[in-house]
């Protein structure tokens, strides 16, 4: 049971949040120009690292805002959360 720090509402229980998978996977500029393989990678393929992962969360039971987080998938520990209009933190 994590305590997740919503950038707006502050720390809330994990149950208040909805997971959104890998962050920073933008919708392609012009999908029509992509090959089937390139499109498939956008639709289905996401990173799945063991360790630090930049991912999307939504405070669904609270302010309903999406935000990003750097979390370690091995320890589950959140290293940082940041708003969508903030750049991905530079991590060592």
């Amino acid at each position, binding site marked *: *049971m*994590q305590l997740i720090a919503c950038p707006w509402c502050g720390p809330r*229980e*994990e*149950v208040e949040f*909805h*997971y959104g*998978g890998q962050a920073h996977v933008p919708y392609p500029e012009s999908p029509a120009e992509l090959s*089937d*393989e390139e499109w*498939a*990678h956008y*639709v*289905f*393929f*996401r*990173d*799945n*690292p*063991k360790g630090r*992962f930049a*991912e999307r969360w939504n405070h669904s039971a609270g302010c309903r805002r999406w935000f990003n987080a750097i*979390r370690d*998938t*091995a*320890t*589950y520990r959140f290293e940082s959360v940041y708003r969508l209009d903030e750049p991905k933190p530079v991590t060592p």
Partner: protein
Amino acid sequence: MTLGSSHATRTPRTPGADLPEHPDSLWRDAEPKRSYDVVIVGGGGHGLATAHYLAKNHGITNVAVLEKGWLAGGNMARNTTIIRSNYLWDESSAIYEHALKLWEGLEEDLDYPILFSQRGVLNLAHTLQDVRDSVRRVEANKLNGVDAEWLEPDEVRKICPVVNTSTDIRYPVLGATYQPRAGIAKHDYVAWGFARRADEAGIDLIQDCEVTGFTTDGNRVTGVQTTRGTISAGKVALCAAGHTSVLTDMLGIRVPVQSHPLQALVSELLEPVHPTVVMSNAVHVYVSQAHKGELVMGAGVDSYNGYGQRGAFHIIERQMAAAVELFPVFARAHLLRTWGGIVDVSPDASPIVGRTPYDNVYLNCGWGTGGFKATPGIGSALAHTIAHDEPHPYVAPFTLDRFVTGALVDEHGAAAVAH
């Protein structure tokens, strides 16, 4: 008290108390050799079964199984041991039915008491759409030669009297699909049976041997770098389940799987009350009473990616609420132990098996919650694929390429039953 009375008061052995003993000899703790014809990465159920069938069906025995921890210590030791083949799509039911047929002869094949108990599996329906999906699956199963029936609530009660089939609960049981040949087995016994067979065939089972990288030459992998040195390999099979991505990242292969925690739990030993296996997606619970009498239950998949082999407790709490709702007599059963595994889930909830961009590397992942029940099936099919260097018909539909063409085997989209 006297000696005589003591014998008089001695109670008979509790039913189920005596599981068959494990044999006096299991496997050598092998040291890695310099080179093998086939290196299987991952000493879980799939890796061990593949090793066994490589030897048994194809006479390939210069094989190493590399396990980063202790043999069969991952999902194989953590799953809820449900075995069934009543999947919706032809491709799925084919491989799982192939597995089920092997399960039925596995005790003899392995000469190991794996306690495969064909007590049947009930998949409960709680909504009208559940009923439609259930009938659809039952009819598909029948046409595919998989034993399946649709049961009305009173028939459900006959098979599992402790299920709450009253109509005044929040989500009344409207019926269930039933696969009589489905059941459970003892996971450790299964894994160790495969391990012992593989070991007998001369295959090296190498523990505490973590893969740290691969040596490649063009589109071939020539060696596997491990914490116990580099091992050159003629062919490499990846059977690492939840850790697949860690390996494919080393190889630069992108695989559309996500690793999630999946929790399970067990109660104390109880007198028999639950003769079958019951699964419910709507009220989310799946439960069986294992051989010794403990209730074994699975909970839901945690939503986030996780390699921690643990999940959040609120999922267990919800699971308990569902269990008590569906089985009121479970109220004072006790949660004895909880644990978690790592399931590798693919976008269509079907496995990804077969060739990779590397000529001599074979992929086997994405089984999600279906891995255990598939064990002998995928073991034999993957062994065939490795031996003949072409996908066995049972795994042919499960290519990586289907995500590009869109020819998914969408057990997920079709709302088939998980686990």
